[in-house]
């Protein structure tokens, strides 16, 4: 037998110990994944964990050290442990990204752990808890996005300036007398039976001259001295070979350092089927001369112990072990992946109440343009219970506007079509579609229809009762009356979205009235004694009828609203839906929910969500946004106490009378008859320009414009769709990624059928099924980026990509920069400036966004056709002699670099509030159409809201920056910087002179740009004069995450 032969060798030799194999169970890593996502967030400090050690159990196989789901519990709360699971303290260091994991100084970490062991030896802690000698270290990177974990485990073993020498090693059966073996076996059986001792892996064995053996704890060492007893230092040996296990190394160091014993007799305890296996256990003797310097205060021992590392050999690059978590629970995985971006918000911003969102029942009245967008965005917020009410059918002309439907749905009721479209984006969502018209204030209803209308009223009442939140998206004024009344009656959250031609109103209705205290029966008080305040004693906020001084009669026939709602600016729906869903989420997270008072932009709020306004009104063409607060009116035809009392008293009789009798509501509420078109309501604070209904849209120009979209993600999908709605028909989409399940809720065009397809090809079908006449191309390509150095064998293909991008830019009229990293925008920005192409950037922060058009490229001073000459004589102005507007990089003081690898997951994953991308895309597409219609096109000067005189098309700003939490919208103007790393003349000249050589140099070495543009010098002088640059950089940085 091999083991016997090895054990029998007798010459003194260096101690050879068997390394410990680790079984880090999938369940442990899954527990870590959850802990990281739900609790730890960006925190990457070390976590105490517990591992489980056991003596050898099977003859043929060494026991493994277990790291199991229980291991992650905090040691103070972890009571798990039994005879085959001796708890051992350990440390887990989980990094935030792969680079962080790769850059860990493994040798240094090991020494730090070894120092802890040395400290525990010195302080006597080991005697109390011998498992400390087995202390272990795990380093890992849990890749939450891809459900993988990379890790390494170490059992640090102390190394000193003296070596352990093995003097003898034999099988215990060869050393012990028969009686001794029997007695020892019985002693072990007892030791392993007691739950107190069985988990202690290091112990003392006394064998008295009469062959009786006892086993004692290390702390009883003094009592084991003398009496002619044999003393063996015993430990659980995990190994099955002819040499001792790894645990022996630190054990010998401990015995030598703590008890000054130079020659150690040891016993390697092994088991078979749960019983002591004295046959296969080992007995040996090792010597370890006291090392020097170890007891000095700051002494740091050398250590070895990484898996795969062996004593005496130089540790080489360690290959991380890899665990794939996707096999653990495939069913719940899709849902978890879809919700990950919400959880990531909690890492830095605010914890999203996922349970509440998943449980809230939302009723959507309307499944048209707004209905589609709101339903999808609610799903992105994690809402899982939706009911949609609509009575229309999908028509061909709606496909580009109503984001969920495709050509196959034409003629199908919208409520039937919408259900599978939501499900194919998120299988966990429960959607019910109800085909029903909302009863309207119509007045000329034939008597025969009254009963069916009453039925609809009752159905609607049941629906409102059984839901928590109602969205009023039905676009007609008369249809909002009944739902508003029902929501006020039942104190349900109601959110209204109204669209004009280029302006919108988003508001939440106030709570219903409370009752006045007065000893009255509650039921009667509900009718007779309504308070002007809500149940919390606060003044009630208004509903969408409150600030209107008239109850509108049949605007359908007046044509005021419908005319406008039929023609709305493309992109407006996306903006308004984004705001409505944001208002919903804010309200749901506010402690007072429906009773929350209305905030006004510009005021401070202590709430971590930011402001919670009552109403917001905005205009696309004017680039303004304002918040409005208005209280419930006592004359309101929908929510006033007079109306509610009457409704509670008479129920549907009252409703029928209100619907059929034109003057009844006016008489009831006592309002004077002031006819005012509905449009004036939204525009109360934003006067609609008279010309707005007749803006000349040059469809020919739009349909012939060739648009290049860089990025087919959240922004790319929305921008492509809105551009089609604008009339654009030539689209080229560039993206390198594939559709994954977490994209489905956020990236509006993809469905589960597209999973694993390249986005650049999946998007084409999705565009065509909404607009058959679109001429769309997709190109799967990564945009070359500075700061992502290229290895020599990649160089050829990256160069190809650069050239390809250059050809794409020159063959298109406008370029949309919709990628999610800063550095990926550099080359397109440079190419656009060089070719004087329209470039529009849309970038998302967590709750802020930026939309900007880049300025025109430079003109030349002498107009020479010679390119080389032209390169030297670039003008500071554009070809019209105007000062050039800035580009995305003009405010930067550093060159773009790799902004991903060193960041935490929430930064890498573009954590933004759902809805923000819709708003941004709407603004970007709108800015583009405005620019295209401007007589100067790319050369148009930048306008600022409120100052510039505005053309027939509305305002054409240079940059739009908005913040969701602050409810502000700024138009900014910035000129091209002569130090810009992308559009300055220095960069452009160099590019014109050296072409792609220059580009490749920048990709490998971005700081070269800083030297070239003079930023290096600028920074030096800035540091010298102590100018504060930092804020500016941070602000921009956030914009781009």
């Amino acid at each position, binding site marked *: 037998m*091999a083991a016997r032969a090895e054990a029998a060798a007798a010459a003194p030799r260096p101690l050879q110990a068997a390394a410990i*194999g*680790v*079984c*880090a*169970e*999938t*369940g*442990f*890593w899954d527990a870590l994944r959850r802990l990281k996502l739900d609790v730890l967030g960006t925190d990457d400090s070390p976590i105490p964990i517990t591992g489980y050690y056991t003596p050898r*159990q*099977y*003859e*043929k*196989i*060494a*026991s*493994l050290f277990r*790291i199991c789901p229980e291991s992650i519990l905090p040691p103070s709360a972890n009571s798990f442990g039994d005879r*085959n699971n001796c708890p051992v303290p350990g440390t887990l260091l989980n990094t935030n990204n792969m680079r962080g994991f790769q850059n860990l100084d493994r040798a240094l970490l090991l020494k730090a752990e070894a120092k802890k062991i040395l400290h525990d030896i010195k302080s006597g802690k080991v005697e109390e808890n011998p498992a400390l000698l087995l202390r272990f270290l795990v380093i890992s990177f849990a890749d939450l996005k891809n459900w993988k974990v990379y890790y390494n485990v170490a059992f640090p073993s102390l190394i000193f300036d003296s070596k352990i020498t093995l003097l003898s090693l034999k099988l215990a059966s060869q050393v012990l007398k028969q009686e001794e073996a029997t007695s020892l076996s019985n002693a072990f059986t007892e030791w392993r039976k007691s739950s107190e001792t069985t988990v202690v892996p290091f112990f003392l064995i006394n064998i008295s001259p009469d062959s009786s053996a006892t086993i004692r704890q290390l702390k009883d060492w003094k009592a084991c001295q003398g009496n002619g007893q044999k003393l063996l230092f015993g430990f659980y040996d995990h190994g099955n070979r002819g040499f001792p296990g790894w645990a022996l190394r630190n054990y010998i160091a401990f015995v030598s350092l703590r008890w000054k014993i130079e020659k150690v007799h040891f016993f390697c305890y092994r088991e*078979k*089927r*749960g019983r002591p296996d004295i046959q296969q256990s080992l007995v040996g003797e090792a010597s370890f001369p006291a090392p020097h310097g170890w007891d000095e205060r700051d002494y740091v021992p050398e250590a070895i112990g990484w898996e795969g590392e062996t004593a005496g050999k130089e540790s080489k690059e360690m290959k991380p*072990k890899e*665990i*794939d978590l996707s*096999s*653990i*629970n*495939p*069913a719940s995985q899709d849902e978890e992946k879809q919700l990950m971006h919400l959880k990531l918000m909690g890492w830095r911003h605010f914890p999203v109440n996922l349970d509440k969102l998943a449980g809230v029942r939302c009723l959507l009245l309307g499944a048209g343009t707004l209905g589609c967008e709101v339903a999808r965005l609610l799903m992105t917020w994690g809402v899982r219970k939706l009911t949609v009410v609509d009575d229309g059918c999908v028509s061909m002309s709606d496909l580009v506007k109503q984001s969920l439907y495709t050509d196959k749905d034409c003629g199908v009721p919208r409520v039937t079509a919408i259900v599978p479209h939501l499900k194919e984006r998120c299988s966990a969502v429960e959607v019910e579609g109800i085909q029903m018209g909302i009863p309207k204030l119509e007045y000329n209803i034939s008597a025969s229809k009254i009963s069916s209308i009453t039925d609809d009223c009752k159905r609607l009442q049941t629906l409102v009762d059984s839901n928590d939140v109602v969205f009023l998206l039905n676009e007609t004024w008369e249809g909002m009356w009944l739902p508003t009344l029902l929501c006020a009656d039942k104190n349900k959250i109601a959110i209204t979205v109204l669209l004009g031609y280029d302006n919108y109103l988003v508001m939440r209705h106030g709570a219903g009235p409370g009752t006045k205290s007065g000893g009255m029966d509650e039921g009667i008080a509900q009718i007779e004694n309504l308070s002007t305040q809500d149940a919390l004693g606060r003044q009630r906020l208004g509903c969408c009828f409150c600030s209107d001084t008239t109850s509108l009669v049949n605007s359908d026939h007046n044509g005021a609203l419908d005319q406008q709602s039929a023609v709305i600016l493309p992109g407006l729906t996306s903006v308004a839906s984004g705001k409505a869903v944001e208002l919903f989420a804010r309200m749901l997270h506010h402690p007072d929910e429906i009773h929350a008072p209305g905030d006004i932009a510009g005021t401070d709020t202590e709430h971590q969500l930011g402001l919670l306004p009552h109403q917001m009104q905005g205009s696309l063409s004017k680039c303004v946004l304002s918040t409005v607060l208005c209280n419930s009116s006592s004359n309101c035809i929908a929510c006033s106490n007079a109306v509610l009392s009457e409704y509670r008293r008479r129920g549907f009789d009252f409703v029928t009378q209100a619907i059929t009798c034109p003057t009844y509501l006016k008489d009831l509420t006592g309002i004077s008859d002031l006819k005012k078109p509905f449009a004036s309501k939204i525009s109360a604070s934003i006067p609609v320009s008279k010309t707005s209904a007749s803006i000349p849209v040059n469809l020919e120009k739009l349909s012939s414009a060739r648009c290049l979209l860089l990025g087919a993600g959240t922004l790319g999908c929305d921008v492509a769709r809105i551009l089609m709605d604008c009339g654009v028909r030539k689209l080229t989409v560039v993206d390198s990624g594939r559709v994954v399940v977490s994209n489905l809720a956020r990236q509006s065009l993809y469905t589960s059928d597209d999973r694993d397809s390249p986005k650049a090809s999946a998007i084409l079908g999705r565009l065509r099924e909404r607009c058959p006449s679109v001429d769309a191309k997709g190109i799967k390509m990564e945009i070359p980026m500075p700061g992502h150095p290229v290895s020599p064998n990649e160089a050829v293909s990256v160069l190809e990509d650069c050239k390809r991008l250059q050809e794409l830019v020159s063959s298109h009229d406008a370029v949309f920069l919709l990628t999610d990293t800063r550095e990926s925008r550099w080359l397109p920005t440079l190419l656009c400036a060089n070719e004087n192409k329209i470039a529009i950037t849309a970038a998302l922060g967590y709750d802020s966004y930026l939309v900007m058009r880049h300025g025109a490229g430079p003109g030349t001073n002498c107009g020479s056709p010679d390119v080389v000459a032209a390169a030297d004589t670039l003008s500071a102005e554009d070809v019209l002699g105007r000062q050039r507007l800035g580009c995305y990089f003009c405010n930067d003081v550093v060159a773009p670099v790799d902004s991903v690898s060193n960041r935490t997951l929430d930064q890498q994953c573009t954590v933004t509030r759902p809805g923000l991308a819709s708003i941004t895309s709407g603004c970007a597409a709108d800015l583009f159409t405005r620019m295209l219609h401007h007589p100067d096109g790319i050369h148009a000067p930048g306008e600022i809201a409120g100052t510039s005189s505005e053309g027939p098309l509305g305002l054409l700003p240079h940059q739009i920056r908005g913040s969701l939490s602050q409810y502000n919208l700024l138009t900014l103007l910035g000129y091209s910087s002569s130090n810009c790393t992308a559009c300055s003349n220095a960069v452009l000249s160099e590019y014109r002179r050296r072409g792609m050589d220059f580009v490749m140099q920048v990709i490998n070495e971005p700081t070269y740009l800083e030297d070239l543009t003079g930023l290096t010098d600028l920074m030096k002088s800035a540091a010298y004069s102590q100018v504060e640059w930092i804020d500016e950089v941070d602000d921009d940085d956030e914009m781009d995450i």
Partner: protein
Amino acid sequence: MGGSSIGEGTLSLGDFVASAKALIEKWKVIDVEDSLPDWQWKPCGKTGVPSEEEGYLALEGVYRNPGGRHAQSSSESVHIYDYHVVYSFSYKVPVLYFQGHQAGGQLLTLDEIKEDLPSHSLKLLGESKWTFITREEHPHFSRPWFTLHPCGTSDCMKLLLEGVENKDQHVQYLPAWLSVVGQAVGLKIPLELYEMHHVSWKPGNN
């Protein structure tokens, strides 16, 4: 203890618990392969309080060497299996749940598990109507395990227990059942376990 349900090939919860505990004790005294540990009873109260009645039978940490079964294996290359026998209230029969992982911790896929199975197990899985492997949520963990679907168990057990003396049936149920399902998943169940009624056996501490 009701012998009548056993006649139908089903088992009451009380019989299941009794049979399980008898099996644990019996297993300890018979000769089994070195790679097989002892069965354990794992109490787990759904209400949070562990009770004797609620729980399952577990055989955890069974080693299996992919490739040569007799080669001296390094612990790196072994596969480790956990087997749980859980009482199914809907079918009134025991259900086998199992999962395997590599020495490093990575869970095994069904294909990898099948590669570990001896050919007669694969044959049984292919032929028998009531031993097919599916993946279902483990009743005591919120995670899917592999399981042998219990729908055909009672019919099969009716046949197996024919001829066993009535008073032994509830104790014999699990060994008889294991002798079949064990084959399907490559678990070597010694005949001694099943031949309980030939052996004079008394429950004891040893």
